[in-house]
């Protein structure tokens, strides 16, 4: 939302926003947001599965739980790697 406002406001605001993103705290916030988004996204899909009555027995629940952790690490690493590429 801040990025959109900065982009709408003009070049100066946008450059300031990019500066903040490039700083250690900005990058930290982006990475933390990425991690929480991926984790929430995966568990959200898992929860939607439960809502539709799938994967409710103990065995499947443990399996999807582990699957979420594995995919969380893999997807987060992929997104952060893509995000770091070419960034200085």
């Amino acid at each position, binding site marked *: 939302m801040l990025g*959109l406002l900065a*982009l709408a406001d003009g070049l100066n605001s946008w450059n300031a926003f990019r500066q903040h993103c490039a700083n250690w705290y900005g990058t930290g916030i982006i990475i933390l947001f990425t991690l929480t988004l991926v984790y929430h996204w995966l568990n959200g899909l898992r929860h939607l599965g439960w809502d539709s009555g799938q994967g409710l027995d103990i065995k499947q629940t443990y399996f999807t739980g582990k699957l979420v952790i594995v995919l969380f690490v893999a997807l987060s690493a992929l997104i952060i790697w893509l995000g770091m590429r070419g960034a200085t």
Partner: protein
Amino acid sequence: MSLRSPLGRVRGLGSAKEGVGHWWAQRVTAIALAPLSIFFVGLVIYLMNDDFSTIRLTLANPFIAILLMSFVVCLFYHGQLGLQTIIEDYVHVRSAEVTLLLLVKFAAFLGALASVLALARIALT
């Protein structure tokens, strides 16, 4: 002893039939957000190293603008619903609960409006 009939009591105290509204809204926004967040992350990575005018031109594309608007509106709505659940479940002081619920609703509403206004300005100028 109450003189009200069992039927009257049920009519007065029973479910308003709106109990699942919140639950459903949470699922609907979740289902919408699942693909929209892939789109958003992909867009950010795609535009990451582009300059100001390229990014503005891209976001001015009506398809991208509409998808982004859908994303931010669903995001703030979904976030508000989720925080509401947490506050209702874990804040046990009624006055604090209501205050927090109001603040979260106002903040989500303002956030969604500001984002849509920014996107509209990008798309229309």
